[in-house]
């Protein structure tokens, strides 16, 4: 028996594959959740940073607007009022390094006052003219980024169309545009890069906390746009470190490692269980095979015994004039050892015949041996001319149950086909039936079975008419567990009484088929003798 199925290794591999897939899926899902959460937190923090930046721009811008308002009150040309107001905002560590007041007259520009350093922007340059024109044309603040003299300057300009005055200020940005971020500030968790306008290129870079050469930022970035005078500042951020909880950050890795460990354990356990099952199945197969072999051997032994038994039974009955003979032997049901039932018919002379039916108690090959001995002994005495009672008496001296453990019941008879006279003696054997239109028991007083010791036997004589049948049998035909023996005998008489007219071999077959119980453990021997002729 071979089972088609997965081998232990295949099962372990399957478990490992499923485990790895589940682990990776779980870990990936958690990692994605963490990334989404990181992105959300980054957006929130960037929004906060943008608000701070927006407020800072307003703070820087405010003095310029206020200065123009002051001049509306003090008089358009009052340079000293401008200087007085703007000075606190100019200098190192102040919003501006340089601030100046200008007035447009026709196409020309006149500088009315200057505080701090001299303006870096050349008033006569095209850049300056374009900047001023833009400042006069717009209502808000004009802001430009200017790289000049190795410095990065942020130019601020705001004009008042009613007075024709304009305020111009310059703010210095770090030369490498790099500025560190103070702890606890809105930017503390972020790397950032600010660009003037909407393009994130190096020329527009306003400020960053990372090495400018490493820009633009890659990875998860977030953008925010803040109004910045007449233009905008684009704030690009990425997370400096993991923003969310440590659990959220390490859980995917933990799940991955734990899952893989569990997968290995599960695969090893699966391998062990599968091997155990395979071994158990192999053991079961071996045991089954052994049982089959034992069963087979038993069958062979039984077959051998049955052949021995049949070899000891006559294959052919003697041919006698006016005598029909039929017989049958049936072994006990499968699973039981063979028994010691037999029958025998012998021609004594032209007209006389001897017959025997016997049953050795017990089972097995030694029973068959006793049976063989009994069969040939009784037969020999009958052939020698002894009457049945004498033959049995002589036999009784030759069998001893205390030495061989067996007891033998025998019915022995001698008949004459011319006269129909039959002599009969029984050594503890069930009496035969006489079928002559009806079935009746032949009254033959039973002596003790062979094996009990020397005994004497009574002999009965009766007439076997032409057409009548003498039916001899062993107890296996009538004996049933839990039933009185007389019930079985009555059943046999009834069955035979109804079948008197059948041919003698049919009669025998019918009786055995009808009366034998399917689970009968005992064997059965039947011999029927019918006297025929005119």
């Amino acid at each position: 028996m071979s089972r088609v199925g997965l081998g232990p290794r295949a099962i372990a591999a399957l478990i490992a594959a499923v485990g790895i897939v589940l682990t990776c899926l779980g870990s990936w899902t958690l990692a994605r959740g963490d990334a989404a959460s990181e992105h959300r937190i980054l957006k929130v923090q960037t929004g906060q940073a943008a608000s701070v930046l927006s407020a800072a721009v307003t703070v820087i811008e405010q003095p310029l607007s206020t200065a123009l308002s002051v001049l509306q009150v003090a008089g358009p040309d009052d340079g000293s009022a401008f200087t007085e107001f703007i000075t606190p905002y100019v200098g190192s560590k102040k919003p501006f390094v340089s601030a100046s007041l200008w007035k447009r007259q026709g196409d020309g520009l006149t500088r009315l006052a200057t505080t701090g350093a001299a303006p870096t922007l050349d008033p006569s340059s095209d850049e300056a003219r374009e900047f001023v024109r833009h400042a006069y044309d717009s209502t808000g603040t004009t802001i430009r980024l200017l790289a000049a003299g190795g410095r990065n300057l942020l130019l601020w300009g705001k004009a008042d169309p009613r007075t024709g005055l304009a305020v111009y200020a310059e703010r210095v940005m770090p030369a490498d545009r790099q500025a560190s971020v103070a702890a606890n500030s809105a930017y503390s968790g972020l790397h950032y890069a600010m660009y003037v306008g909407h393009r994130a290129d190096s020329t527009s870079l306003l400020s960053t906390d990372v090495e400018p050469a490493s820009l633009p930022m890659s990875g998860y970035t977030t953008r925010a746009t803040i109004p910045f005078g007449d233009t905008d500042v684009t704030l690009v951020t990425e997370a400096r470190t993991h923003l969310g909880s440590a659990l959220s950050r390490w859980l995917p890795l933990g799940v991955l490692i734990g899952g893989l460990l569990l997968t290995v354990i599960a695969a090893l356990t699966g391998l062990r269980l599968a091997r155990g099952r395979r071994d158990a199945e192999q053991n079961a197969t071996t045991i089954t095979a052994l049982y089959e072999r034992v069963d087979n051997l038993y069958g062979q032994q039984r077959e051998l015994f049955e052949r021995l038994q049949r070899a000891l039974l006559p294959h052919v009955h003697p041919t006698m004039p006016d005598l029909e003979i039929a017989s049958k032997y049936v072994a006990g049901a499968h699973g039981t050892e063979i028994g010691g039932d037999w029958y025998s018919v012998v021609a004594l002379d032209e007209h006389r015949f001897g017959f025997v039916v016997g049953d050795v108690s017990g089972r097995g090959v030694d029973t068959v041996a006793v049976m063989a001995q009994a069969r040939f002994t009784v037969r020999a005495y009958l052939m020698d001319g002894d009457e049945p009672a004498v033959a049995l008496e002589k036999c009784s001296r030759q069998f001893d149950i205390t030495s061989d453990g067996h007891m033998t019941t025998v019915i022995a008879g001698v008949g004459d086909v011319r006269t129909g006279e039959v002599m009969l003696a029984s050594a503890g054997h069930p009496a035969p039936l006489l079928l002559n239109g009806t079935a009746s028991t032949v009254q033959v007083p039973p002596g003790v079975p062979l094996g009990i010791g020397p005994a004497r036997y009574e002999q009965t004589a009766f007439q076997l008419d032409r057409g009548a049948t003498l039916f001899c049998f062993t107890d296996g035909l009538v004996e049933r567990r839990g039933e009185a023996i007389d019930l079985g005998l009555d059943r046999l008489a009834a069955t035979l009484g109804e079948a008197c007219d059948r041919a003698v071999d049919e009669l025998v077959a019918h009786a055995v088929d009808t009366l034998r119980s399917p689970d009968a453990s005992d064997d059965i021997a039947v011999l029927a003798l019918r006297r025929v002729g005119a």
Partner: protein
Amino acid sequence: MVGLATSTGPDGAAVLAVSGDLDIAGVAAFLEHAQPLLQSDAAVIEVDLRDVTFLDSSGIGALVRLRKATADGQRLRLSHVPASVARVLELTGLTDLFADRSDW
């Protein structure tokens, strides 16, 4: 299945009570239980058959072997023999061999 129990009767007999089926499957156990009784000093060995439900030729053979094994001075007595068992003994020609019986 055969059931076997030994005891001592009121008259000092060594009693072997048999129940169930005394057949080829029970013969070995029967003889094994009977062996100590044969070796005892009891003058009477009694086999109580009141609860025997089936007796086949092997069982009869076992009774015969016990009967023949009783030593000088010992005798075998069957007690409470059911009618079915008595009938089987009769058909087997053994009524006289087991003539020693009691019903109390």
